[in-house]
């Protein structure tokens, strides 16, 4: 099988690392070779963050390059747009419509572009944009945005719901399991 590429992008502190951990776990459970590459440290302080998840029969490079991502799962709209160059031809974007202003926008040095979902579609991406924040709050916490997004992304993969739930059980701390199960369900079903 040709290596498949998933990028998880967002703003430092949004919980992208847990999402990639869960995805990696699921793919390993399914018997694939998996590599997950993360960036820790300075960029986690509210900067733009990206995690690469690659799976297949045998994965060499730990990173995804421009034009290679089959899926971009984005926690924030501007971040989805930022990484568009990485999307493969015919690639799918699954993005939260939440807007988090970066510091240059806050200080007035730059503007947050309007109509980003439409621009991405016009550039040839398949785009699914939805309000994951409201669903996360409905599940019980704004912090569950990551799992809501994975729930929505799960619809694009052939893995049965149980395999996702198993990976969820194995990666989320027991204290937050109920909340995250609900967040996953809302993302997958709504």
């Amino acid at each position, binding site marked *: 099988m040709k290596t498949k590429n998933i990028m998880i992008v967002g703003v430092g502190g949004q919980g992208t690392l847990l999402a990639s951990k869960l995805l990696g776990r699921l793919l390993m459970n399914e018997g694939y070779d998996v590599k997950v590459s993360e*960036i820790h440290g300075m960029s986690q302080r509210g900067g733009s963050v990206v995690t690469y998840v690659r799976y297949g029969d045998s994965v060499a*490079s730990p990173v995804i390059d421009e034009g290679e991502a089959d899926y971009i799962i984005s926690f924030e709209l501007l971040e989805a747009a930022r990484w568009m160059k990485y999307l493969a031809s015919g690639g799918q974007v699954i993005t939260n419509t939440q807007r988090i202003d970066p510091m240059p926008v806050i200080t007035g040095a730059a503007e947050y572009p309007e109509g980003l979902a439409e621009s991405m579609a016009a550039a040839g991406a398949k785009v699914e944009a939805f309000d994951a924040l409201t669903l996360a709050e409905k599940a019980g916490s704004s912090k569950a945005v990551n799992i809501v997004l994975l729930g929505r992304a799960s619809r694009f993969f052939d893995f049965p719901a149980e395999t996702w739930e198993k990976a969820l059980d194995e990666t989320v701390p027991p204290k937050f399991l109920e909340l995250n199960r609900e967040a996953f369900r809302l993302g997958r079903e709504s």
Partner: protein
Amino acid sequence: MKQLLLGNAAVAQGLYDAGCEVVSSYPGTPSTEITECLAEHRDIYSEWAPNEKVAMETAFGASLGGKRSFCGMKHVGLNVAADPLFTISYTGVNAGMVIAVADDPGMHSSQNEQDSRHYAKAAKLPMLEPADSAECYEFARKAYEISEKYDTPVLLRLCTRIAHSQSIVEPYGRSVPEQKEYAKRPEKYIMMPGYAKLRHPIVEERTLKLTELAETSDLNRVEMGGTELGIIASGTAYQYAKEVFGENASILKLGLVNPLPEKLIKDFAAKVKRVVVIEELDPVVEEHCKAIGVNVSGKDMFPLIDEFSQNLVASAFGISKDTGRSLDAKIPGRPPVMCAGCPHRGMFYALKKLGVTVMGDIGCYTLGAAAPLGAIDTTICMGASVSGLHGFEHSGTGVKAVAVIGDSTFMHSGMTGLVNIAYNGSKSTVIILDNSITGMTGHQQNPTTGLDIHGDPAGKIDLEAFCRAIGINRVRVVDPYDLAQCEQAVREETEADEPSVIISRRPCALLKTVRHEPPFAVDKEKCVGCKSCMRIGCPAISFKSGKTEIDKTLCVGCGVCTQLCKFDSFYR
């Protein structure tokens, strides 16, 4: 059982399974998790040391005492520990000793892009470089075998994309070798000239033996494929080459990157039409190949800077790839920022307002250099703020200047600079930004927090008492959430006729033990849109339709912004 492990976690598992029993490190991205994972094993001794030199000497002491030991650090940490490194190369070890060093090509979280392989060559030490988590595990185990067999500390080199990538590992259990007996051996362990002269030839002999290992060990392997092109690579570069060429090229994959083999390379080169060395950062392998008379390409095709990728490797060989979709929209950057409620913000605001020159240091507070605060003038390395300030004071500019340094960094190497200020008497003002944790690397304890690596009670260095004890008479503590207090302290201390220390004290807002106040909101009737509150660069504050807005999910109620509002617009 198969596990998906971070490279760093796999190194930790390999060290533990090989019987590592003493661990001493200083945190540094991207190396930190090795020690954090080892600390989860409560049956072995682990600690955060104040700096890398202390950590390395501690690990050496444990090896001397007969237990397998470890210290881990980032690339610039090895500069700090270079002094013991070069000499424990001479003494060798008793029980095995492994030193992990994590380079950061691309500088994701570092101040330079140095290549640690130079240290292995310069200190004449073996260096292993794994290419995925399975090798991280395996090489960590092998490092102890090599260490004991060849009587040498062993360097394990990682880089960001190996240290912080997860891949599949199948650990196979821990076995602890018997503790080695300690025997007094002055000729081996006392490195004064007479004895050191006897050790140096042993080091050179060891390098020859290790070169023989490089020729024959399965750490280095040839993967024959197409013979038009032969690639020599290690670590990430090997993976990128594999990604691009698969079986279409032959690869000499190096796991032992110092010393380098000669015959193996010559034999490999003889089997292929042309040889290209792919290596991130410096041309270490390339220069070796050229020195032994093997004609290779390398930096004539690849850059010296930044990390590589599969597309970069492909394009160096003229292979074109899809370069993705592009948008018309202009995408604003998203640089990292100080968190909402960060205790450093208030002090930086005061420094900016007073217009003083600020000698910066290494930590979260380096972000004080970014707009809109822009309050830092220099950042070099750990401790350089304090000693640099002392020199700046002696340069006679007459400019008002201060040093800012975090609690952990002050313990690391700021305190010796302060001793110099006290001893040689400059009128320097050093501000210790005490947020009660090592922040940037993800919350590690340090000597000022009163807790050890496990979060258990430990010795606590009293910063005020320390500063006074070395002879600083003017020591005061301020709350950085109080802007007026910060401003007054900086004004008075920079005007004082003797050295001074201001301790700006409030715990990191991200600490679980810190209780947050309710968020503020903006009274749109009162807000006149003057943007005064925007000057502190808080990510929770934005400006929409001519008024300030607060993101209640981010605001922790620190109240720094409220002190800037003349119109009483903020309320809870």
